[in-house]
């Protein structure tokens, strides 16, 4: 199908994004990444490889970390999507975000929103993760800057902060 014909076929997506119900009409071939960035102005979700490899665009769909570049918008109809923008509380960084800031788990910052979302999902499943679990989970996203150790430190620190605030 030509881009033109695909664009002509529009569908309605009913989705909850960071706790707010959204209803958008988009071309059928729109991916979640473009829905979030281009339609909703959520540029905290980063576009990079657009092949589902690097994880910069990671969001949580019904709690599951997913590369939003590789999911059609129609497939999140009726779902809840969490992005980095929803991690801040009243404009202040949440515990995972504070841990990344405190431990220097970022440099250029382009992978950071995806890493923050991955960490959020990891710590829901394993509130006190082992080193091995952290490495395994973080291995689904690419960071070209840090060498990962300071990201791993950030994940452990985030676990502590969440426990302290529980």
């Amino acid at each position: 199908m030509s881009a033109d014909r695909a664009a002509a076929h529009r569908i309605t997506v009913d989705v909850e994004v960071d706790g707010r119900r959204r209803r958008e009409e988009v071309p059928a071939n729109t991916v979640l990444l473009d829905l979030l960035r281009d339609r909703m102005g959520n540029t905290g979700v980063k576009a990079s490889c657009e092949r589902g490899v690097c994880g910069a665009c990671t969001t949580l769909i019904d709690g599951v970390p997913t590369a939003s570049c590789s999911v059609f918008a129609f497939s999140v109809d009726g779902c809840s999507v969490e992005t980095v923008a929803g991690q801040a509380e009243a404009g202040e960084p949440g515990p995972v975000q504070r841990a990344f800031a405190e431990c220097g788990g970022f440099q250029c910052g382009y992978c950071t929103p995806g890493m923050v979302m991955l960490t959020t999902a990891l710590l829901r499943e394993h509130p006190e993760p082992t080193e091995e679990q952290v490495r395994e989970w973080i291995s689904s996203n690419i960071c070209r800057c840090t060498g990962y150790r300071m990201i791993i430190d950030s994940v452990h620190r985030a676990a502590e902060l969440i426990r302290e605030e529980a």
Partner: protein
Amino acid sequence: MTARPSAFGSTAPRKDAKLKVTGAARYTADVTLPGMLHAKVLRSPHAHARLVTVDARRAREVPGVHAVLTRDDLGGLDAVFGYFIKDQPIVATDRVRHVGDPVAAVAAESEAAALEALALIDVEYEVLDAVPDVDAALAEGAAELFPGDKPRGVVPPYGAGASAELWPRPNVCYEFRYETGSEDVWERCDHVFEDTFVFSRMNHFHLEPFVTVADARGDRIEVWSSTQNPFPLRKEIARVFRVEESSVRVNVPFVGGGFGAKHNCKTEPVAILLSKLTGRPVRHCLTTEEGFLTLSQHAAVLRVRTGLLADGTFLARESEVLLDAGAYTDGSPLVAEKAGYRIPGPYRWEHVRSSCACVMTSTTPAGPFRGFGATQATWASESQIDMIARRLGMDPYDLRVKNLRALGEPFMPGESGIDSDLVEGLDLVAAELGYHGRGSAPNRGMGLAIGFKDGGGVNKPAQARVKVNATGQVFVSTGAVEIGQGISTALCLVAAEVLGVPPERVSYAPVSTDTSPFDQGTNASSGMTVMGRAVQLAAEQARDRVLEFAAGHLGCEPADLELADWGVRLKETVHPLPPMVAAVFGGTGYEFSGDGFFKAPNSHEAPLEAPCVFWEIGWAGAEVEVDPETGAVTVLKLVASGDVGRAANKLVVRGQEEGAALMGYGQALFEEMRYEDGVLVNGEALDYRVPMAEDLPASFVSVSQEQGHGPGPFGSKGAGEGTMVPIAAAIANAVQDATGARVTTLPLTPERVFRALREATSPAV
């Protein structure tokens, strides 16, 4: 002096932390303008071909398409760009020189419409012989990528012993040469060893793609671009589009990684020209796949010949480096100069002769990459030192220590002194690794290496402005780009230290060429030692103006006063500044400002025409286990260490050192752009493997040194490249320690290691 908390040496979060962890940081990829169109480029499917016809008529009819740019649209422009050599066209004019070479471009309402139009551009090629690698390009009778009249270029002035030549032979665009001391010493050598090394190329793989938004409506050209050097980019855009620099404005939001890739023209010319043709702003954002066809590191072949006395004293080193420059020169001449100059390493020699040639091949253009020639040079240099030590029955550590230059000793005649104690660093790494007490377990071994590069760059003028408002808020403004390395944090800490204010009161201004002070570029680890000095001088001037003002108001001498948390201390009394400022300037306010300028002085005595600003050293040690059945190398422990002189922010420094080391680790073991029959076969994220967290060695230790000898503010030096440079050699040296087998080609894949094991164990024929 009264004691006060030092801003310098902080472990506080970086200035950009909150913006980046919340996703609020704005990058060029996030910039949109009303009415903005999207550009896509048609790329050559051939490695080398003559462009016969380009017919865009059908493409122009696609709904949503506003313009198609071909070679017919370049009239009135100086449409080729480059660093020393102007050879790269905006779109191909007479021939294409690599797969991916831009042939035409479309601006459309959406990227999808632009892609649809690209498919309708009819191009007729006459395929020519490709020159896929250095050997093919240098072969007798090889096809020439630039036959006939050569693209214009310049050779910069060089000092003692150094020279260079443009287009010395077919398919070689530039050759750098350096020589010092008499070659007669070869006659005194008891041993002479010659070895050849092969270095593979990587992609930068910055996560934010190459991207530009251009608005060239009317008389001005305004771009937002993901670039490391906004001012040289402004100059190049002005030259190409034949306008004054005052008509060009380059804005640089946060940059999502550069690693050397984001210099000079990349996505900008196409975006600007399409904006001119359409009268609309145009966004030109490359895919990751296009990034692989835009710029890479230099592959290299390095031949090194080393002569020494029986006791291990080095006498002479001769080297010949061939860099694979790819299809266009980009930064290759500069990389050649550095690779050729650095290859002797930080050792004492009586005679050095080196040459480094940039060989044009029909592959992705190669250019600046973190390490900038030093990674290639050190791979050969530090590998050969271990090979020689083992041939002589010496420990490689002892051979290094015997020949290393001392602290303060010039690298070469006319050069600045080396500003790190090299043995001190080597000992730290050896101790952390347990090198000296290492056991002799089968297939396990340890290796060391020292990475070495001249940092800070030559001919890098840097200007800075620091201003302080009536309430003591400090604004630092420079052209240094925050690409993730933490320079905005470090420069704010320099100003905070000079002005005696808490770091949280200092902010870093966005970079825009109309308003930011001039800077040559964000590269060569020059942020601290070059721009840091400019910021320090600017802050000192602002401070002096505050003290003069306060002295006038208080009726004393400026020398009697000291700044303290936006008050002035006179003897035991602190006088707050805000009421003083209000009394003189009124309630609207006032800003004290200072300007700073720094450039390392030129000297014709120095080989590169200016003594090196600082020496960026990276020490590395590795412990490996080699599986003799498969050749697989497991790094059990990796130790990397740099010397930053004095750390402005310890988190920033650690992050730079670990990140650089892991990049070197990927290069050592698996990361490479693979060409088969001249075609790149893994140029996309799925097939191209960069290090992931699961690849980390079981133990990965970084040791930040603060030796305190740096020329930057408060004894600092630069960081960010040094620890990448020695990693591959340290791991290969450990493999030889473990098995006796030597691999001289990167990366150290199981197949290569396995073959080397077979060679090492089978009897010589």
